[in-house]
């Protein structure tokens, strides 16, 4: 039964000076659902990208079912039976669902040079049905679909080729339970057909429940592969981090106190879409958690509070009465914002760490109207040390960093700008346990310094673990409000969400 599907031998891959993989040996057998876990920058995405043909490797060999295997690109890998579902968006916008599924394969439905769109639509419908997502209309424009359904369309496209190996790269993080169940079922089905799945995730519970084996990577080295019986959270965490986890994960106290002073207030906000009559008050020294389903309007609350979008009715005001109508007005009053789309909206991805960190603080470090390299460097180095950003120099482009370290750069930007109010939209999305822990410590530290934080998150555990006060939203309205206490459980909160 367990014949070998893919074998990687001594894979080495460097990105400039960064050693992404240092001689990794990896084998996937048929029928396996192999979890792949490691901190950001550990090399788990890199090894998968090499297997799926996105990059070549610097040295080492790959074997597919015993035969030497050298995919030239993703399409080549797909032809050979290796498909990958990416972490980020992989659908093409402004065309129909069925066109997305059969992109590049229109020839299957072409007769005398004309594409038979009805046949295509029918075939697309069948694939979606098989996947358990029959409610997606293959004739709809892809833009009308939410993130989750677009992800499912991408999966449908990958599955049409009937791959032998499916690589799922941190896809489940952004999906609801329904989307996750569809992926889990798909994995089980592939496993029972003697195919193989590589499943990258940061979620330990998910991996322990659904994977048959687990490989841990750290700093480009394969640390260990565990059987189902050996999987145990504390062991996995210590393998990942390379040391015992010390200290608390979230904050340990249940003293949810904060000052009475209101630093930011949103009154009777109507934005014409999700929010109808939304009110919120943020106090000095408060961590305010906002939770809900991803479409509940909580992300819009963050964008409105920072002035990225303007409400049609209602007001967003700071303590001194300033109207927050533009982000530059917010930053001038020491408000910072971290977008949930880090690479697209927060970072200048090809610019350096230094250039990204100093951006909102340029006026602060200007002397006699000029910027001096010494001051710029001091600002960036301070944040690099404070947040222990893993890099060779601060003049290195941000795109060479791993996800967690990129997020640290964004945090550093606002801490360097001495933000008094921080609006964090899913700040730990796609960030590994080690970095997550240090971010939680940091957020708690900021609170103790009297700063105020709005923590918007789809992860209830994080909101329960960190907040002084929790707001749960549903359909653009506040459906429940809770003070910090030991009694709050995820189950209790979910009731208010749906």
């Amino acid at each position: 039964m367990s014949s070998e599907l893919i074998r990687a031998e001594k894979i080495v891959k460097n990105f400039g000076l960064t050693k992404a993989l240092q001689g990794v040996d990896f084998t996937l057998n048929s029928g396996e659902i192999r979890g792949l876990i490691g901190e950001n920058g550990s090399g788990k995405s890199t090894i998968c990208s090499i297997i799926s043909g996105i990059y070549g490797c610097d040295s080492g060999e790959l074997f597919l079912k015993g035969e030497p295997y050298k995919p030239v690109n993703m399409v080549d890998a797909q032809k050979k039976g290796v498909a990958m579902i990416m972490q980020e968006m992989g659908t093409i916008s402004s065309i129909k669902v069925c066109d997305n599924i059969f992109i590049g394969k229109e020839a299957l439905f072409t007769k005398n040079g004309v594409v038979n769109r009805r046949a295509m639509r029918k075939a697309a419908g069948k694939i979606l049905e098989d996947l358990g997502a029959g409610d997606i209309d293959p004739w709809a424009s892809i833009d009308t679909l939410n993130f989750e359904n677009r992800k499912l369309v991408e999966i449908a496209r990958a599955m049409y080729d009937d791959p032998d190996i499916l690589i799922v790269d941190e896809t489940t993080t952004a999906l609801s339970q329904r989307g996750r169940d569809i992926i889990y079922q798909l994995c089980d089905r592939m496993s029972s057909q003697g195919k193989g799945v590589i499943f990258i995730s940061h979620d330990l519970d998910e991996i322990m429940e659904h994977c048959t084996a687990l490989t841990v990577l750290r700093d480009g080295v394969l640390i260990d592969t565990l059987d189902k019986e050996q999987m145990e959270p504390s062991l996995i965490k210590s393998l990942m981090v390379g040391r015992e986890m010390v200290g608390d994960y979230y904050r340990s106290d249940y003293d949810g106190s904060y000052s009475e002073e209101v630093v930011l207030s949103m009154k009777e906000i109507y934005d014409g879409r999700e929010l109808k009559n939304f009110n919120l008050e943020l106090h000095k020294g408060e961590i305010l958690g906002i939770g809900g389903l991803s479409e509940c309007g909580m992300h819009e609350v963050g964008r409105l509070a920072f002035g990225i979008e303007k409400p049609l009715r209602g007001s967003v005001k700071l303590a001194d009465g300033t109207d927050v109508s533009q982000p530059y007005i917010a930053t001038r009053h020491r408000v910072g914002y971290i977008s949930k789309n880090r690479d697209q909206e927060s970072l200048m991805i090809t610019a350096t760490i230094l250039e990204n960190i100093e951006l909102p603080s340029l006026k602060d470090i200007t002397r006699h109207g000029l910027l001096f390299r010494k001051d710029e460097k001091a600002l960036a180095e301070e944040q690099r040390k404070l947040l222990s950003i893993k890099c060779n120099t601060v003049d290195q482009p941000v795109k060479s960093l791993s996800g967690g370290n990129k997020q640290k750069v964004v945090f550093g930007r606002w801490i360097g700008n001495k933000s008094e109010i921080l609006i964090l939209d899913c700040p730990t999305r796609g960030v590994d346990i080690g970095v997550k822990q240090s971010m939680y410590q940091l957020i708690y530290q900021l609170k103790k310094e009297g700063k105020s934080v709005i923590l918007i998150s789809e992860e209830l555990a994080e909101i329960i673990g960190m907040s002084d006060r929790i707001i749960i939203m549903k359909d653009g309205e506040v459906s429940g409000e809770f003070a910090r206490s030991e009694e709050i459980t995820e189950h209790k909160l979910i009731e208010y969400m749906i």
Partner: protein
Amino acid sequence: MEFIRKNARTILPFVGLAAVIIILLIISGGSIFAPGNLSNILDQSYTVVLLSVGCTFLYSHGGFDLAVGGIYGLSMMVSGMIYLGGSMSIWVALPLCILVSLVCYLIMGVVTVKLQLPAFITSLCMQFICRGIVTTISKGNINLPGEFSAGDSWVIKIIVLVILLGGAYILLHRTAFGKNNRAIGENPVAARQSGINIDKVRLLAYVIVAVLVGVAGFFSMCSARTVATLAGSGFEMDVIVAIVLGGMSLNGGMDSSVRAAIIGTLIVKLLENGLVIIGVSSTWSDFVIGAVFLIVILFNYKRNKLGFLPR
């Protein structure tokens, strides 16, 4: 070697410039650097350097400028005609040139920034508008009196050039405005979310290019002592070629630099002049410049695949 690989984008334009100089020197037997021709090259480069450096401020924030030649021509024509209409010092023509250019650029800037139209389109329209005004009001080329030769002094011109280029360098590279301007070209969404007042920064860039174009116009009037209805036509292309040959991306971003505009202009003007000197007809020199441009563009877009430059 590692240093060269890392800084290839900075070094290559210098290598290109050196190569152009050496090749032309060898083929022409040194005659392209004969004193007479050298001042020719400087003359031709002077205007385009100022225009290119000015336009760098627009290109670096993701803008585009097809109007620069038209605005340059209009500023000369309007201030030349006003000068001829009344008796005054030739130095009045300098602020006049800057004023005309400023008005044109501010109209273009406000339309582009506030109405959020693509700069490519608005500047193309502006080019036609300026050229239209020039031909309508002038009814032909105008000649300027000999007094204008007072401004045709290399001492003055070099001092002005050093001040303007130095100022532009400091503004683009060493001030918050310059960093913000380039950050907008890098990623406008991230720039806005980092607290940059995008509209204000972009408008300020229009003011800066306007000043440089106005000054360039004034000194051209001094050295030519005539304003042609077609003066400046095609300069927008010279600027684009110069910026790209200088090693800058037309999409702007953090890599944008004043250096690129200067080096690029020198390469273009040396090539143009050198080809004529060594006896290539001017129609063929356009062909050569087009071909060089294509190669550089190819290299810029495909460099990742060539694996020569770091990603």
